[in-house]
């Protein structure tokens, strides 16, 4: 069995398309992270900076207010980080100077940049909000969402040929051999899942390494709720740290891709050619996105459990919090196990029952 898994694994990674897909994802992920990093902008009232200097400036400003968010800190930030109106006539609230200014203005200032009268408890209730430099990890998370979506398509490209390419003629030899219908089918599925886990690990590791390289480890223990305007915190209204956010995102990348591999495996066993398996898998994969589901409805909750929403990440993270730090997204784990088991059983059964014409 071990030998068969090795061979099936080798077959997957011998395909040129697999390499093209994986390398494209890695290249795009580097390009996206680098572009985000290079486009960073910050202004501390005197100097403005971009790229690496902007990140350093943001970190320095955030370090000044680091710790638990209090009303005093809010007032201090509002007075020290006063936004200047610009020549295009934008209101102060829409002006972006640096990540800390943006975060405080989004929650505690009126349209002109003055205090809006809200206290920390008015905005965050009884939650203890730990603040610091979170923008780097929030941006890394946003970029990873796009990359993980691409990665799931790479997984489909990689897994779609697993069974159906055998139907081109080698099935004669496989299915007439002793373990063709049993161990070989199982080895194909196991190798498929292994390959999925490996390329997910590679892409996740690559992205995390880049994020560490660009932004350091600052802010991993800070709340996502005090993030700059128009960020993830607008959609994930729970007081979790950046570290927790990333752990969920990585978990969901794995659950999403394992589930996707399970679905693709079934179509690979069912379809007679690679293109049909690819199209059918993609169609099923993206189907939940076209469901007319209201964001508060049961259908939406169910849809977010589909692999597409695992990798899109924010919708499933926004559903509900079961208890402190444990979100609805944890249900992605049993769902992935279910997809993996169904994918395994169904594809093995279909392949074993295949007749050669």
């Amino acid at each position: 069995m071990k030998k068969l898994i090795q061979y099936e694994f080798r077959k997957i990674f011998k395909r040129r398309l697999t390499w093209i897909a994986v390398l494209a994802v890695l290249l795009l992920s580097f390009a996206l992270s680098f572009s985000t990093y290079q486009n960073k902008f910050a202004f501390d009232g005197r100097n403005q900076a971009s790229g690496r200097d902007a990140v350093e400036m943001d970190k320095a400003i955030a370090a000044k207010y680091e710790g638990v968010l209090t009303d005093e800190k809010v007032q201090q930030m509002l007075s020290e980080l006063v936004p200047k109106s610009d020549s295009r006539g934008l209101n102060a609230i829409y002006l972006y100077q640096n990540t800390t200014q943006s975060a405080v203005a989004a929650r505690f200032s009126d349209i002109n940049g003055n205090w809006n009268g809200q206290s920390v408890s008015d905005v965050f209730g009884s939650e203890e909000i730990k603040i610091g430099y979170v923008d780097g990890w929030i941006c890394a998370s946003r970029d990873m969402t796009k990359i993980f979506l691409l990665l799931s398509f790479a997984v489909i490209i990689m897994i779609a040929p697993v069974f159906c390419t055998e139907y081109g003629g080698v099935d004669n030899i496989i299915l007439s051999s002793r373990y063709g219908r049993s161990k070989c089918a199982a080895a194909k599925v196991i190798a498929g899942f292994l390959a999925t886990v490996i390329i997910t690990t590679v892409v996740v590791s690559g992205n995390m390494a880049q994020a560490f390289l660009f932004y350091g480890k600052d802010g991993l223990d800070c709340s996502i709720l005090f993030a700059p305007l128009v960020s993830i915190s607008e959609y994930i209204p729970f007081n979790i740290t950046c570290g927790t956010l990333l752990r969920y995102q990585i978990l969901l990348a794995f659950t999403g891709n394992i589930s996707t591999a399970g679905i693709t495996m079934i179509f690979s066993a069912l379809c007679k050619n690679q293109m049909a398996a690819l199209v059918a898998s993609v169609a099923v994969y993206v189907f939940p996105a076209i469901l007319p589901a209201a964001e508060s409805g049961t259908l939406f909750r169910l849809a977010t459990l589909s692999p597409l929403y695992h990798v899109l990440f924010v919708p499933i993270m926004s559903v509900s919090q079961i208890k402190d730090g444990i979100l609805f997204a944890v249900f992605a784990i049993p769902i992935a196990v279910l997809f993996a088991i169904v994918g395994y059983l169904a594809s093995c059964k279909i392949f074993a029952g295949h007749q050669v014409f």
Partner: protein
Amino acid sequence: MKLKTVELTRRYGQKVAVDHMNMTLTSGVYGLLGPNGAGKTTLMRLLCTLQRPTSGKILLDGKNIGKLGEKYCSLLGYLPQDFQYYPDFTALDFLLYVAALKGLKEKSARKKSKELLEEVGLEAEGRHRIKSFSGGMKRRLGIAQAMLNDPRILILDEPTTGLDPKERVRFRNLISSFAKDRIVILSTHIVSDVEYIAEKILMMKSGQIIHFGSPGEITSEIDGLVWECSLPAGCAEHYAAKLNVSNLRNEGRGHTVLRIISEKMPVADAVQVQPNLEDLYLYYFKEQGGGK
């Protein structure tokens, strides 16, 4: 060991590929002859469990092969007509992969693979990628993979296609030495191959076995129907178009020797000769898929 088909039938919609076939095969080499569409490949696929019968069954020593499952497949070696492979695998890798499918232990798989590569004349190409192989080399690799597990039942569909005469002789010798206490079924359009090595001939037409016996037995059916005569080259063409001619040989000096299958003396001075399998084949299947 006894392999038996009982009322074995396989249909594709309205078309009957194998029609209520009853036969019993014991150890020996069986040559399966028949025109295209006679049902040979379907029969082989049924015997290899690659297709399920529409009705009827196949029994190995009284047990249904469908129920024997892996046990039956472990006795089987199969070379399909359209032998496919993984182009990026080397010949040795491919054999090791098939050996793993057949459940051979790695050490013995490696040993056996090397032995077989040598036997089919591919020892120097073992480390070469299959995509660089010629048609004949691929065919030889196909033969090697079928024999990896020392199968008790060896089924070869068109094994000699693409082989040059030297390779065909090597193949025939290989099968002859291998066949002891085993069932070997081979289908081919090259009748002479069957004639050399098959102990029994199965002649198929429209999904049924129309003849079953040793080459001598079944060719005796057309004893007295095969003639040879020498004619001027100009006349030979006329007769070749008109009669069932199994061979036409230019003898020089403007004369051609015709081998004719005919119920009565086709031309004056024609002499009766010993029939061979090719004559019998032409007698039954003069027109592809049709015939007498």
